[in-house]
């Protein structure tokens, strides 16, 4: 018993950190509140039926986005703690170990558990609507992907109170992350949390490729696809070829750490550099996985609010294809200084700079789209407009970093930190906000308040520049990234950056408030085309969107399908064409499948095989049950379709 208590309070729970005790208390209070509210409103059954087991792409998308926003808060708190610690020399807010953990979880969470699910959520919501489909190709699998992501997220996030957080950076380089230099469960959380969520990402990739290739409405040819759908297709292709590399890299390090393999160790002739290569072979395509969908969103938003067809549609598509191909050929630029030699560095320098060409093409296409457009400045458009100059700053400094010789000066400094935050925040995060605000009325039946949205935008956008622009100069001044304490001469700029970070946090708080405010007071949407200027099929549906999306669809003969429909006075409800609709049934199996893998992974994290093996067996049992599941879905009767459509369109259902 005493041994158990020693283990429980000595190793299992993270103890001795006031900040973490605070986090524990707030997690406990938060969980109790959520459970109490759900119980009070008798909402458990509703939650299970309507969301947890749902195969509806719209609801799955919304669940992804909610999880992403929660993770934005978690990763954001990590960021604020780093900014506080590095605002003044000699700060003792965090110790070096805690600082290492925080920058590791910040990076990992923001990329894997914030940016990707946010974009995957928007894809889930919008893509089937944009191509006139009733759901994705594999709705069951879509739910499975979500739960794989959600349990991976849970596994990664519990590390900071149970066992300790990973602390080797989001890149998790060997041999620092190996068993010898980093024993204990922390790195295992990284390996298995990412592995678990990676299954879902791969599933999403396959799902969207098939959906987009096979489920387009009649007349929507490949070269008439909305550009966000194109960006999703290309992203999905990158996922399918890049994620298996991560799967292997993580598995190899798991074998090293838990089963004594010698792949990345210094003993047994292992090669630590192999990790860096494998990681970035996945890691660089990953960068494009989180930026291409954002490009797609900006294209939709700019074209919509400039009231013009996208300029250079074909060039946009080809540019994305070229970016996707090049994304697999640049990985060494992440470690120019790690001894690859001049020839290799030159090759990767050139491929890296080449990426600037198709990206530049896209920038001019966005500008060309706006040229002579009748632009209005709704909040999604503000984010899209802010994206262009800010992203260009990030892109140009990226080309500076791409020059291998010069990179010896910039590498591992705050210059790099500034660069990738300029592309990832101005690109991905602005894109997520733009897309969320853009499609929000279709998701929840009301817009977000425009005035609060503009306050949010200006605070966040200015705060972003105040925070990250000084970091370029800190990099020139020699401030290394991941340092937990700063020199006095860096203080003015570093303190400025902290002030910017607080502005961003304030902006985000306004955003959270605007969700509440709009829920209470915003006018309810009565028609489908929320902004009045929609161009793609997502705006042709009624609001709220019927669960089967489209009752009927006309035959399309041009790009911007909904513009054509509006011209011809067509809707998605042609009384004479209504037929029975076949829809897939909900299923609780994915939840249990991934719960089983969660248990197995948690067991592996602690190297408890008595837990890992039963978890794995449970997983295979649920898989077997699924194999025998011949549920054929259900049919929606024409009567029900008439009722739903007429109610949604404010007609009397006589």
């Amino acid at each position: 018993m005493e041994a158990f208590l020693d283990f429980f309070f000595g190793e299992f729970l993270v103890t001795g950190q006031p900040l973490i005790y605070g986090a524990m208390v707030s997690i406990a209070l938060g969980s109790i509140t959520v459970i109490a509210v759900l119980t009070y409103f008798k909402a458990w059954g509703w939650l299970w039926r309507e969301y947890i087991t749902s195969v509806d792409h719209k609801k799955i998308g919304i669940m992804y986005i909610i999880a992403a926003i929660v993770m934005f808060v978690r990763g954001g708190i990590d960021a604020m703690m780093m900014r506080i610690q590095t605002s003044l020399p000699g700060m003792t807010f965090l110790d070096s170990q805690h600082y290492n953990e925080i920058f590791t979880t910040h990076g990992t969470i923001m990329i894997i558990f914030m940016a990707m699910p946010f974009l995957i959520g928007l894809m889930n919501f919008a893509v089937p609507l944009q191509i006139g489909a009733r759901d994705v190709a594999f709705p069951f699998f879509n739910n499975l992907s979500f739960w794989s992501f959600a349990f991976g997220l849970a596994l990664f996030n519990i590390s900071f109170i149970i066992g300790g957080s990973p602390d080797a950076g989001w890149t998790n380089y060997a041999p620092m992350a190996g068993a010898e230099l980093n024993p204990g469960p922390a790195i295992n959380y990284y390996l298995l949390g990412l592995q678990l969520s990676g299954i879902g990402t791969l599933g999403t990739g396959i799902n969207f490729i098939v959906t987009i290739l096979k489920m387009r409405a009649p007349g929507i040819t490949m070269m008439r696809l909305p550009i966000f759908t194109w960006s999703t297709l290309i992203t999905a292709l990158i996922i399918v070829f890049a994620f298996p590399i991560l799967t292997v890299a993580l598995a190899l390090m798991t074998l090293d750490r838990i089963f004594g393999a010698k792949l990345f160790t210094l003993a047994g002739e292992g090669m630590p550099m192999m990790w860096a290569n494998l990681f970035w072979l996945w890691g660089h395509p990953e960068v494009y996985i989180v930026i291409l969908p954002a490009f797609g969103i900006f294209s939709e938003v700019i074209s919509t609010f400039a009231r013009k067809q996208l300029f250079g549609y074909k060039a946009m598509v080809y540019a994305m294809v070229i970016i996707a191909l090049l994304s697999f050929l640049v990985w060494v630029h992440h470690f120019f200084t790690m001894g690859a030699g001049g020839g290799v560095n030159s090759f990767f320098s050139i491929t890296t700079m080449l990426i600037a060409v198709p990206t530049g093409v896209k920038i001019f296409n966005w500008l060309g789209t706006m040229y002579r457009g009748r632009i209005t400045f709704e909040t999604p458009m503000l984010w899209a407009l802010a994206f262009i100059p800010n992203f260009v700053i990030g892109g140009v400094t990226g080309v500076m970093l791409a020059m291998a010789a010069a990179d010896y000066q910039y590498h591992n400094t705050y210059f790099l930190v500034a660069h990738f935050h300029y592309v990832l925040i101005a690109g991905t995060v602005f894109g997520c906000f733009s897309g969320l605000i853009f499609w929000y009325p279709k998701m929840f039946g009301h817009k977000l308040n425009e005035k609060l949205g503009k306050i949010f935008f200006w605070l966040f956008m200015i705060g972003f520049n105040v925070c990250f622009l000084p970091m370029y100069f800190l990099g020139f001044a020699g401030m290394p990234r991941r340092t937990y304490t700063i020199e006095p001469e860096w203080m003015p700029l570093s303190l400025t950056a902290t002030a910017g970070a607080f502005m961003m946090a304030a902006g985000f708080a306004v955003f959270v408030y605007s969700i509440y405010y709009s829920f209470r007071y915003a006018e309810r949407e009565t028609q489908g085309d929320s902004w009045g200027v929609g161009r793609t099929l997502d705006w042709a549906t009624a609001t709220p969107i019927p669960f089967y999306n489209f009752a009927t669809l006309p035959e399309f003969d041009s790009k911007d399908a909904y513009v054509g429909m509006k011209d011809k006075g067509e809707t998605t409800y042609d009384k004479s064409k209504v037929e029975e609709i076949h829809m897939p049934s909900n299923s609780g199996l994915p939840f249990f499948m991934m719960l089983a893998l969660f248990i197995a992974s948690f067991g592996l994290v602690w190297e408890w095989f008595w837990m890992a093996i039963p978890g794995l067996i449970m997983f295979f049992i649920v898989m077997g049950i699924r194999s025998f599941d011949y549920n054929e879905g259900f049919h929606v009767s024409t009567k029900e379709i008439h009722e739903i459509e007429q109610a949604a369109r404010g007609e009397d259902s006589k």
Partner: protein
Amino acid sequence: MSAHTEATTGPMEYRTQEGRMNILGFWIFLGAEIALFATIFATYAVMIGRTADAPPPQELFSLPITLLMTFLLLTSSFTCGIAINEMRRGSKNGLLLWMGMTLVLGLGFLGLEIYEFEHLVHEGASISSAAYWSAFFTLTGTHGLHVTVGLGWGILLLIQLYQRGITPRTASKFFIFGLYWHFLDVVWIFVYTVVYLLGMVG
């Protein structure tokens, strides 16, 4: 949206929209599997010669066993092809018989592989003895794990076939299983060539 996309002629597994999408989805999954095995092969190639204090592969690999394994797996791929042919002919018993043979041959392969691993570990080459052997066991083990999953999957499908006969749903499942099984065969040809044949000449 479903009514007019269903065909009444042509191979059973392609008749419904769902069947066609499942097959395409599985092809894309196999694309991901190729990326997965390619990464492991690359890792293996990098680790060649890195045996540290452990015995090198040319001292341990035995041609007869691995050749027998190769024959078993290649034959199982052949019987699997015949099984799908029987399915297309609408012969439930033919499908049962040939698919059953496929699984038995697969089981034989797996048994020999376990025997081979046992032998290697006994001779002092385990996953933890050196970088080369870690890569070796990862590569062959990943393939072996796929075969194991395939055996379990095949058994479940045979039960379903017994219960339901050949329908568009079961046909689609068997066809996809066939793709998977042939894929494992192709991977094994690379494993046999790159790992065993090249390993034996050192």
